[in-house]
């Protein structure tokens, strides 16, 4: 369970460029809950993720994961329990290293529980475990384990990153920052399908930023809308099931207290 309490983050304090990116955000995400997040550029979605993952520390407020206060825990330590995917498929993998080596590194997150020391090499059992996991992607990557990741397509790299971040060592929470935005529609569909299965199978808590209103309503079981560093809308359950894209836009206007049309906030239907 992730719990944010009155999180505040301001950039460039004391300059003309001062910008309140998060304005006292409080949010609780239970295990097994899959929330989609929408909002225009600059609404604070990515800042929210950065605060959760520890890319930077919050100015005020606290971040708790499963009851542990992680507000001042550095990002690489949080990574054992937080998996994250970015829009750029290149960010999650090391291009000059082989698929197998990338997986072995991601698997290091498990080493806290005693699986392999710093001077151990990739074992046979691990290799077959990686193979089995790769075959689940259905992309034929299990036969290319000795190839450098740089040779893979963006979609393949993103699927591999998903595997590394979410299934090899299941995290407590998975953060998806527009992770299909750079992929072609068919590949995006496939990666979204994979995402769905992985989140359901492992009963993860998951937050997904998207600019696609359709998948915002289709994926997961909760939708958050952000504007001006605040969560202006939080819908789930029956109310969400009956909602259409147009209905969502109307609710947004009401929540943000201003008129917005579909184009202006850069959503695609």
């Amino acid at each position, binding site marked *: 369970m992730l719990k944010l309490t009155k999180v505040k983050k301001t950039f460039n304090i004391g300059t003309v460029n001062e910008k309140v990116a998060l304005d006292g955000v409080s949010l609780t995400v239970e295990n097994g809950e899959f929330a989609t997040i929408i909002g225009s550029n600059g609404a604070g979605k990515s800042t929210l993720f950065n605060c959760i993952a520890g890319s930077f520390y919050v100015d005020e407020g606290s971040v708790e994961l499963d009851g542990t206060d992680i507000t001042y825990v550095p990002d*690489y330590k949080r990574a054992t329990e937080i998996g994250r995917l970015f829009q750029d498929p290149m960010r999650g*993998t090391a291009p000059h*290293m082989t698929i197998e080596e990338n997986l072995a590194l991601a698997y290091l997150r498990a080493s806290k529980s005693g699986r392999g020391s710093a001077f151990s090499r990739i074992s046979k059992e691990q290799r077959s475990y990686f193979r089995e996991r790769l075959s689940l992607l259905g992309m034929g990557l299990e036969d290319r384990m000795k190839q450098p990741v740089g040779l893979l397509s963006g979609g393949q790299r993103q699927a591999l990153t998903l595997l590394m971040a979410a299934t090899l060592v299941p995290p407590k929470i998975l953060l998806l920052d527009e992770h299909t935005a750079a992929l072609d529609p068919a590949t995006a569909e496939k990666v979204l399908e994979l995402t769905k299965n992985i989140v359901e199978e492992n009963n993860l808590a998951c937050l997904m930023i998207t600019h696609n209103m359709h998948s915002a309503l289709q994926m997961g079981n909760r939708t958050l809308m952000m504007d001006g560093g605040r969560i202006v809308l939080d819908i789930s359950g029956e109310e969400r099931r009956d909602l259409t894209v147009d209905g969502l836009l109307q609710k947004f206007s009401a929540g943000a207290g201003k008129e917005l049309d579909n184009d202006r906030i850069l959503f695609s239907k």
Partner: protein
Amino acid sequence: MGSLLSLPVVISALELGFIYALVALALFLSYSILNIADLSTDGCFTLGCAVGAQVAIMGHPVLALFAAMLAGICSGYIMASLQTKLGVESILAGIIVNTGLYTVNLAVMGFSSNLSLFKCDTIFSLLKNVFGATWYKLITAIIVVVIVCLILAWFLGTRLGLSIRATGDNADMVKASSINPGFTITVGLCVSSAMTALSGCLIGQYQKSCDINLGTGMVTIALASLIIGETLIGKGTMFKRIVGVILGSCLYRFAIAIALRLHIPAECLKLVSAVIVAVAIASPYLKKQIAFQRRKMAAVSARKGGGSGC
């Protein structure tokens, strides 16, 4: 070629090639893998030589190798700490350490600018009786370098080694794997500095002297070897790339040996090195450009030929 390279010239080029290969391997780790330009190499090389020389003079030539490596690790640790703990840019950190090492090296040498090892045993002289008078230096150098290479190749395949390789490739991904990149940079620089210092120690024992200016320009020479090797061998497995670096180092020494045989005065050698480095670095790019120009010319002339036919 036969008259240009006699057997003693070939042997001494190989000897130096193998010994200096350790510095090239150090840069392979810091520059190619970690993506850090380690400019403390010059000072670190002399540090290894000075520490090794002092320990050898005390009568422990083998212990000298380990003492030199330990000194190198200290130097690497300081360089890494400046970067990861104090936020100093890597190039600046290298320059700072290099400058400081000059005084440290002088102090190690007892504030004299050179030391002589002519009266004491070296690992080379210890093995002279075992391997014979012609080959002993080369065989000793090869043994040390091969041991270092095997350990390095093994190390880069371990989890810690993989983390170090990933740090230069994608630091974000390293963090996502719950590894502190500051830690991997520190380990990587300590290992690379240990190799640089070991090379310095071997050179000191090889030429039976240690000079305060021994390391000057070492980073350029090592970079030349590294790039010659990478250009020839290209990408591949870690082991292949390591072999490539050694090959590059030996080829560089041959180039210098040939330059000397062509009666280029020794004072001009640094300029020759600089030219070799520039050519080695530029050659992959030039190769690509020439291939492209050829294709372009062929395509343009084909188009012209087709046009006149109509």
